[in-house]
């Protein structure tokens, strides 16, 4: 009986991953002339090369409609590196090395002939740079094109790995659908052509060091897990506040709104990291199983519930950080009668043993007084206070606040005795500042996530069922709000913490938003 020899494995690779070595690879960027490529992707790729984290056998191929020569695209690369504040070390030799292995192919993503040209170029450069047939496709294009791109790549024979042990991976940008039905349709279209283990759905929030630190805080410390449940936690507040408005992207925001832009992805990501059960391991499979499980356990919001668990808002004119700003409806590209929400607050509960009865309050808005993202675990008050009420100056119980941005860190609020002869008690804060302990991490989330994709690590990327579970939570809210046009907007002034209805949402439970 003939047996096939097992594929040869490079024995010298083992143990080197800590030093950053990755497999040779060709990175093809769809939408290479676009904003995301220029502002985020090219500087991130340069940083990876400069830090010698990208493999020495590496090449970049830009692909978009706009006709450009290799030299013109190389100029786009050097200009975007020069303009980026995310570039850490300006290293002319490293940039030159990257420039020399960067190429461009022009073509329309709907055109079969363009993919034949792309395939020829990929084969040529694969030989030239010895990238072993390993490919990553990055879709930095309008979301409506993702499915079509996958179909064409499949048609051109580009998504099947060639000879073992090569790989083909596809990084898919957000937004991943605009509601549950479109996300399901996109998943099923992509999965017709590309395997789930090849798809890397990016949410750059998961590439942030401090978001990953939530997991370390929870699962590397023995003291938090025992109290991380309904017996000790009163409620959880997740805030994703931006002081900016829509920055000239009126037509984009009109189609999107705060729920699609932030709540369905970033805010629910944070909620799942705080709420998930400890995974058996941090491999992509175990970790994502637990992350999806907790999103699926969120109590479904029915159309009848929407009014009692979700509120929306839109900013009017006001002042932010000392500057007068216009209201949303006065922004360029925005309908003067728009009912697109720029603020939303939700009250969600998780139906499982750990969290039953603990409300998770989520709020996100534009034009808030400051930019801040934090998760606050409000703990229950001590069951009995042996002190007179007057002695406790600022009762409030214990809060563990995980700050994600801008001042990454962890703060614990607890009560302490004010020095003196009487028993006066005052709330104090104990701070851990990430930057002051480890220095500020300067790698951008895109850098981290592209590197993870090069290494074949899907842990920090979304899985199809995770994306659909998140859409299932917000879908009824989007539907209800789209059909109920009778809303009095604007209902909060720019530079304030959102509409009064958001305060009422918590007041009904006898709680209030944290003053940030």
């Amino acid at each position: 009986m003939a047996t096939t020899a097992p594929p040869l494995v490079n024995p010298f690779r083992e143990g080197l991953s800590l030093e950053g070595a990755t497999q040779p690879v060709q990175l093809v960027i769809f939408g290479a002339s676009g904003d995301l490529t220029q502002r985020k992707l090219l500087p991130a790729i340069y940083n990876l090369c400069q830090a010698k984290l990208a493999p020495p056998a590496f090449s970049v191929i830009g692909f978009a409609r706009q006709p450009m020569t290799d030299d013109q695209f190389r100029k786009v690369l050097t200009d975007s590196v020069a303009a980026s504040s995310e570039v850490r070390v300006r290293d002319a030799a490293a940039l030159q090395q990257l420039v020399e292995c960067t190429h461009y192919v022009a073509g329309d993503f709907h055109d079969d002939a363009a993919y034949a040209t792309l395939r020829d170029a990929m084969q040529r450069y694969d030989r030239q740079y010895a990238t072993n047939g390993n490919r990553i496709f990055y879709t930095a294009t309008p979301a409506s094109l993702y499915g079509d791109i996958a179909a064409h790549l499949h048609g051109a024979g580009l998504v099947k790995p060639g000879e073992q042990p090569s790989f083909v991976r596809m990084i898919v940008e957000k937004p991943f659908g605009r509601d549950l039905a479109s996300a399901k349709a996109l998943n099923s279209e992509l999965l017709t052509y590309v395997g789930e283990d090849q798809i890397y759905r990016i949410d750059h929030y998961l590439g942030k060091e401090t978001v990953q630190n939530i997991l370390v805080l929870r699962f590397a410390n023995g003291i938090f897990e025992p109290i991380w449940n309904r017996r000790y936690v009163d409620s959880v507040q997740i805030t994703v506040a931006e002081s900016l408005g829509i920055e000239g992207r009126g037509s984009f925001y009109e189609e999107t709104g705060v729920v699609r832009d932030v709540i369905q992805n970033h805010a629910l990501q944070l909620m799942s990291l705080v709420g998930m059960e400890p995974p058996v391991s941090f491999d992509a499979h175990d970790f994502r199983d637990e992350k999806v499980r907790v999103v699926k356990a969120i109590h479904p919001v029915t159309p009848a519930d929407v009014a009692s668990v979700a509120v929306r808002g839109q900013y009017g004119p006001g002042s932010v950080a000392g500057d007068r700003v216009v209201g949303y409806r006065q922004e360029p590209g925005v309908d003067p009668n728009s009912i697109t929400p720029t603020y939303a607050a939700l009250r969600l509960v998780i139906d499982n043993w750990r969290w039953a009865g603990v409300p998770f309050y989520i709020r996100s808005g534009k034009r808030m007084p400051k930019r801040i993202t934090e998760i606050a675990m409000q703990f229950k008050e001590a069951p009995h206070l042996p002190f007179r009420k007057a002695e406790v100056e600022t009762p409030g119980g214990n809060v563990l606040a995980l700050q994600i941005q801008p001042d990454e860190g962890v703060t614990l609020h607890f009560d302490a005795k004010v020095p003196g002869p009487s028993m006066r008690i005052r709330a104090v804060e104990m701070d851990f500042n990430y930057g002051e302990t480890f220095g500020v991490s300067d790698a951008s989330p895109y850098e981290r996530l592209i590197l993870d994709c090069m290494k074949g690590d899907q842990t920090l990327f979304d899985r199809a069922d995770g994306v659909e579970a998140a859409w299932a939570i917000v879908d009824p809210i989007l539907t209800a709000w789209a059909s109920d046009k009778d809303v009095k907007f604007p209902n909060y002034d720019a530079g304030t913490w959102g509409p009064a209805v958001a305060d009422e949402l918590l007041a009904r439970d006898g709680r209030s938003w944290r003053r940030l």
Partner: protein
Amino acid sequence: MPGGDGMPAAPMKGLTPVAVPGIEAALAERRRAMIAKLERPHSRACVMTLLVGIEEMKDNQPAFDVVQQLAGKYPIRVIAVGRAEGADGGLAAWVNTECEGAESVAICTEEIVLQSSADAVDRVISAVRGSLVSELPVVLWWRGSVPSGNPLWTGLFALADRAIVDSHRFAFRHAGGDAKAVSSGRGHGPAAIKALRDLLREAGTRASVRDLNWQRTAPWRAAVATCFDDREMLALLPGIDRCAITFAGERDDDPPSARALLMAGWLRNRLPRLHEQSKVAAGKRSGGLESGRIVAVTLTSSTNKSSLLLVRRAAPIGIEAQASSREGKAFRRWDFGASTLTEAQLLDGCLESLGSDPMFEASLRSAIS
């Protein structure tokens, strides 16, 4: 030049002399002064105590320069301990607090410098013991020759969870075929490898040991691994059964350098059939290259003409590699840019993770000795 009050001169600028019992109070005071200068709230952070063992305080400046370079990266307490004659009553102490990057986030380092005469090692160790930051990892960076048998090392290592040495600094006096460890002299790779193995044995499971010299082989290891990522090169691997490493030496009969032996150990560990045929030899000294550095690595086949040759390039610094087919025809070249890693970068690499380095330990076991 001696300091006032019978105090020896401070081993570096910016240090304030203190009596050992006053170390914590002096640090706290300097800290308060630093925070006042920052004009913003600052929480104290500390991630480890770094003990720096210096054999002779008069050679201390490079060690302090390295500490300064690390200071901006980690909030650490550094306790530098060295031997110097003439320390008052056998023991002298200084402190300093430095905050870096005050504009955005400030990372503060506390420095304690302890100097003792040879007969006051027990006193200096007791001062170190009392100055460790509670419950945080203690890393000992030994900046000297072979540490075993040195009472300062013994005292400091007993307090540490991790020791970092530099086998390149291990010095020996050659007496016939034997090499006897001394505080300064010539390198002798086989003796250094034996000394490293002894250290690992001494550490057992209580502490881990790392070697800066092993870190210096990282660019060579990464280059070899990358060459074998190439499918054509990988296809030649089954036939590869010989390796040769050339290091910079003074004479052809120089004993192999520790670095070259560690590199050979790694190759032999990764490809056990190389155990039979591996060679480490001194190359003609080129361009004033420091002794012991790797100059070339060759992997060849005894049954055909396939080979991989990696050669150090002087300017710009890098490694050039060339692969040849079974017929001896060159089919691929690589050019790896590299830079000479500074002592601070090497130490930083060792501090990034606190556990042991299994690949280093396996390569040390496989090194020729």
